[in-house]
């Protein structure tokens, strides 16, 4: 039974080992990130059965809570660790082909830092430690967005930086207020004593946390950075950003709202906010003709759907939300990788330039189509059970507000179907049999991750009950706040 | 010799059973008026109230397919000959032609004109003539009654003559009109086969 700390330590250590390894030979540094995340993936999967019955607690430096920093590896945490490790490993395999010759080692270091930050955020039980890892994640993302060095990349990175830092500033103020109020930084401890204080003074940190983490989680007004960042970042990075970074931001918001401050009737506001994000994301995506921006806006839309699912605040809703989160991570990573690979062939990001790609790159376009069908929620693919569970939860909830919002969700899904099918049609049917470009030999390292993602989407689409028990456990962990508190502070 | 105009034996049932074909043709002459020249002015009075050709079963019809009496009223110019021949050939088989007025007989007052046809029966067989430079309606009825007697005696066989001597007729037509657009109506072998059957019948 491996100690959860290793999930953070190993990638961090290897990240800083890269400059040393560079002197031995330039080639092997490309394989280091893959190695690190393979380790994470294997051991995380081994840890899941353990975590299922009782969460694993690690007290760093031997200090017992609420003094020192402690890591809490509950089902939620492990779910995210697995997702991060899986996507990280496959994207790093995709990155065997160098994105750009110069500064390749810096790319790999930042990439590993980014994902270590993400893993750290997910596992930590201490709000300041949460902030630290969150900062590592954001900083690494800022620099990676600007990695390509072209004008668009730098400009969007700067915008992302400004907004991100504003958000982090707010979080820091929130932590300060909480620390001033309760004198401790341990989540469980704060959660236990949250109601002993009159609400107004606690409400301000809640709002600050939500806005801070919301910037990273791309809620409606806060996500202005996302379209530029994702479209100008290199393919692998935008896959990771859409796949992991936003989800981790959402995890942070969830952890704050559910465990730290407990459920309140803020949920109605979050329901509306979620559907608003969904509608705006889908409508913007509908009128895009650059494929990466379209996928970015569709990520915003999906986040809105997740927020709606989680704010139903019922076990079914949260399980559905987690399932949809997993399907979005895999689906969006697949879409970005496939689109990126096709962009290297067509040269431009315009959808119109993808005419007749069905003939020249059959496998990638097939993968893209399956990804698109899964995002829209067509049955044999992973998106369908996700939507199915969310709808079930919403209908089970049965209030009038939820039903009306459900109507909006359906309209948004139709719009989503419209623009995804439009791309599929361009791939296969547009263009009157132009002389098909010669089918270049597909780079093996690029196709493997795409195939693995597609396989996962189909398998989980047909047998969703493989991972539902893990999701139920994580939903329970989120919902029964006192259980979480008791398990950390005996 | 003036043949006594045939009495109307329409109600003689015996004759109906003996030769229904002839009787049918006699008492239901559906006329196709080829209105060339001045003769057509005479037709409306014959078919309307005052002279009423319908008493004898003669009614105007629209297309040659439905007609068995072909009335050519007035002078025949070279251009209209082409359409007369075409209409005549489109009529079903027991068909009778009647030249109306003196022009179809021998060119009438246009006897020396360069573009009128002098003797119509050089080009299509004509069974009966009605003399007069535009004969009156009564003359039409006399012609009709004469036609009855001809049909009775089996002498109104212009259509058979046309069929037998089609080559001669065709040659005359081509001599006047030059090359004709439609193929010859009776090709060689069909003609002798028909005539053989006629002889046998």
């Amino acid at each position, binding site marked *: 039974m491996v100690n959860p700390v290793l999930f953070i330590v190993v990638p961090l250590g290897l990240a800083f080992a890269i400059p040393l390894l560079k002197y031995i030979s330039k080639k092997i540094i490309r394989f280091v990130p893959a190695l690190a995340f393979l380790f994470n993936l294997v051991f995380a999967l081994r840890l899941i059965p353990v975590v299922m019955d009782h969460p694993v607690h690690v007290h760093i430096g031997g200090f017992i809570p609420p003094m020192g920093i402690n890591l809490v590896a509950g089902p939620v945490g492990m779910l995210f660790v697995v997702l991060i490790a899986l996507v990280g490993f496959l994207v790093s395999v995709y990155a065997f082909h160098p994105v750009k010759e110069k500064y390749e080692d810096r790319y790999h270091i930042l990439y590993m830092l980014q994902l270590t930050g993400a893993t750290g955020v997910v596992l930590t039980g201490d709000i300041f430690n949460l902030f630290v890892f969150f900062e590592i994640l954001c900083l690494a993302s800022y620099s990676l967005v600007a990695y390509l060095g072209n004008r668009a990349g730098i400009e969007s990175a700067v915008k992302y930086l400004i907004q991100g830092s504003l958000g982090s500033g707010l979080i820091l103020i929130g932590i300060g207020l909480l620390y001033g109020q309760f004198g401790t930084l341990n989540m469980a401890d704060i959660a236990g004593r949250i109601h002993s204080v009159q609400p107004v003074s606690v409400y301000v940190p809640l*709002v600050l946390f939500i806005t801070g983490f919301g910037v990273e989680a791309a809620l409606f007004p806060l996500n202005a950075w996302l379209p530029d960042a994702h479209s100008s970042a290199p393919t692998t990075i935008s896959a990771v950003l859409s796949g992991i970074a936003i989800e981790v931001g959402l995890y942070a918001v969830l952890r704050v709202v559910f465990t730290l401050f407990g459920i309140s009737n803020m949920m109605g506001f979050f329901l509306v906010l979620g559907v608003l994000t969904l509608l705006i994301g889908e409508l913007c995506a509908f009128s895009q003709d650059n494929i990466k921006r379209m996928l970015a806006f569709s990520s915003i839309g999906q986040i809105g759907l997740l927020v709606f699912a989680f704010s139903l605040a019922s076990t079914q809703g949260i399980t559905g939300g987690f399932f949809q989160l997993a399907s979005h991570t895999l689906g969006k990573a697949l879409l970005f990788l496939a689109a990126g690979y096709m962009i290297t062939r067509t040269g431009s990001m315009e959808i119109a330039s993808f005419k007749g790609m069905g003939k020249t790159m059959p496998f990638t376009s097939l993968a893209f189509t399956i990804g698109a069908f899964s995002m829209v929620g067509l049955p044999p693919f992973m998106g369908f059970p996700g939507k*199915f569970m969310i709808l079930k939860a919403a209908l089970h909830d049965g209030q009038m507000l939820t039903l009306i919002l459900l109507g909006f969700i359906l309209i948004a899904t139709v719009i989503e179907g419209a623009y995804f099918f439009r791309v599929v049609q361009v791939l296969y049917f547009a263009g009157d049999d132009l002389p098909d470009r010669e089918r270049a030999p597909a780079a093996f390292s690029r196709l493997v991750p795409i195939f693995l993602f597609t396989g996962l989407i189909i398998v989980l689409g047909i047998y969703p009950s493989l991972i539902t028990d893990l999701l139920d456990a994580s939903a329970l962990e989120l919902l029964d706040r006192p259980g979480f508190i008791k398990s950390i502070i005996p | 010799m003036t043949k006594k105009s045939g009495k109307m034996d329409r109600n003689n049932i015996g004759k109906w059973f003996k030769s229904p074909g002839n009787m049918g043709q006699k008492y239901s002459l559906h006329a196709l008026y080829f209105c060339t020249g001045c003769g057509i002015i005479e037709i409306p009075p014959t078919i309307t109230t005052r002279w009423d050709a319908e008493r004898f079963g003669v009614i105007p019809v629209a*297309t040659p397919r439905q007609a068995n009496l072909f009335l050519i009223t007035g002078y025949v110019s070279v251009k209209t000959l082409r359409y007369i021949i075409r209409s005549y050939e489109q009529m079903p088989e027991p068909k009778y032609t009647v030249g109306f007025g003196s022009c179809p007989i021998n060119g009438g007052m246009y006897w020396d004109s360069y573009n009128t046809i002098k003797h119509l029966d050089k080009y299509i067989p004509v069974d009966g003539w009605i003399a007069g430079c535009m004969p009156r309606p009564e003359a039409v009825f006399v012609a009709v009654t004469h036609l009855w007697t001809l049909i009775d005696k089996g002498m109104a066989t212009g259509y058979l003559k046309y069929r037998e001597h089609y080559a001669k007729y065709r040659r005359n037509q081509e001599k006047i009109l030059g090359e004709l657009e*439609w193929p010859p109506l009776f090709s060689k072998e069909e003609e002798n086969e028909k005539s053989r059957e006629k002889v046998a019948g």
Partner: protein
Amino acid sequence: MKLEILLAVFFGGSLLTYLLGKISKRARDILAVLVLLFATAGITSLYGKSSTATLYTGFLDFPMVLSIHPFAWIFALTIAVVGLCAVIFSWLYIRKKGRTDFFYFMMLLVIFSMIGIVLSGDFLSFYIFWEMMSWSTFLLISYNRGKAIAAGMKYIVMSVAGSLAMLVGMISLYTQTGTLVFEGISGSLNSASSGYLQFILILFFVAFGIKNAIWPLHVWLPPAHSEAPSPFSAVLSGVLIKIGTFGFILLIYGIIQVQVFVNLGHALFNVRNLLLLLGAVTILIPTFIALFQDDAKRLLAWSTVAQAGYIILGIAYGTSESLSGGTLHFFNHALFKSLLFMVVGAVEFRTNGVRDLNSLGGLIKKMPVTFVAGLIGVCGLIGVPLTNGFVSKWLIYHTLIVNHSPFLAFVALLGTWGTILYSYKLIHHIFLGQLPRKYEKLQAAPVSMKVPMIFLSLTVFVFGVLPGLPLHVINLSELGFGMEPLAINMWGVVTGSGSIQMLNIATALILGGIVLWLFFRMGPKNTRADQMDNYAAGAPVPADRYQYSVKFYDPLTRMIAPYLKDIADNFYSALARGIRNAGNGIRRIYTGDVGNYALYIILFLAILIFIQLYWKVW
């Protein structure tokens, strides 16, 4: 033959066809037909049996159940037969075109998913097969590029909207009754309030209405049918449209029980009257629009929409006779409509791609067998007594009249006369009239196209003269729904207030025909005239300018035209434009200036605090 084996082999077969196509085209064609033959044999062997089999429970522990009962059997058999004929038909039709493996794979997938829908015993498998049918149809409609892409897009957007509505309806049924299996739902549904039932009916009405092309939701059908490749549009308009009918029958007669459905909700404003009204409108308006069409397949597409109206009338009326009339009309319509599409496809194949009615003509001289098939198809469409269309239409009219709703009967009968006009226009423009010079050297339809056409024409006749065969099976299914079956014998229907005996009508017509034929042969032999020897006031017949087909019913259509603006289509395009403008508008929010973004964050903070002050949320 167990159901899962049937479906598994079918799916495996279609995958194999795709792969085999890479190796040898001939083998792929034969395999495709073999797969369909196997399916047809399998289904026929299930006659009369009604069994259920749970497939697997991997999906969120909802059991996926397959079940067969006589009612589903009719649908399954029709789908298989029409699919078989379409695939045989497409042997030669598709050979010249590109991407043939893709075409066969998708065709078999569509037929597989339709049979899957019909055999499914619970809503989950029903929905999964429904979605697979939607997106494989989408891929097939946009098969031959150009305008087909827009048609495919219109189709998929509407069918996604429809299936989402069904998903919501299905899950709300689950929340109400706790199970997704049909029997379970119908068992525990009687407790539900009539308002809830009406809500469910409206939701399912949207889903099935779109597929069944009921009037306001029919907008996708004409472009989809005229752009899809002909063999597929035969399947599309023959059976795929009727999956919505299957859904309606399943819902109204299977789940909600027809007595409940009939007197549900307010006396006048209930779902049944809505369906009846829309059914009537669906009969009238498309029939008039079909008069205007100049493209053969678009005309047939509009006629499909009109005939779907009859079926809706039959089903929504609720009596056992109207149900049997509706189902029989589905069965008949599948036969003669796919026959007509094949005829148009054969003509299109021979004249390589000409579908415009005004440039064809006189093809009877060159394609006699196709003409006879087309004529029988058209007679079936109109409902001429010796064909099967007559029996089903008679049943529908008889119930409408006897149960005292003459206005619906009037609309349906008027629809039939509209059908006569546009179907004669179809036959006249393609086969009758002057043969243009450019088609002088046209060969007849190839054998592989003639066989399915002849087979379908025979079925149209056989079921016309012996309506007892299909009616017997329909009676079995009505017993399944717990309704008293119709009094039928082999030759027709015998009811208290009026009956039809096809024996008398058939013998009268045939004997009369023979007597008159002998009477006709009396008298001298007819001489044969060529088309150039027609009456043209003595003038020679001008070649290629002597065919009257443009603006065929102009005096009539000129009168109707001002009233026939296509309201539904304008509404949908306006909606699409609205969404696009909204999209562009909203895109303005992301102005690209970081100052605004920072402002947004602060704004968000302000809103949150405002909520707390105002509503004391926390």
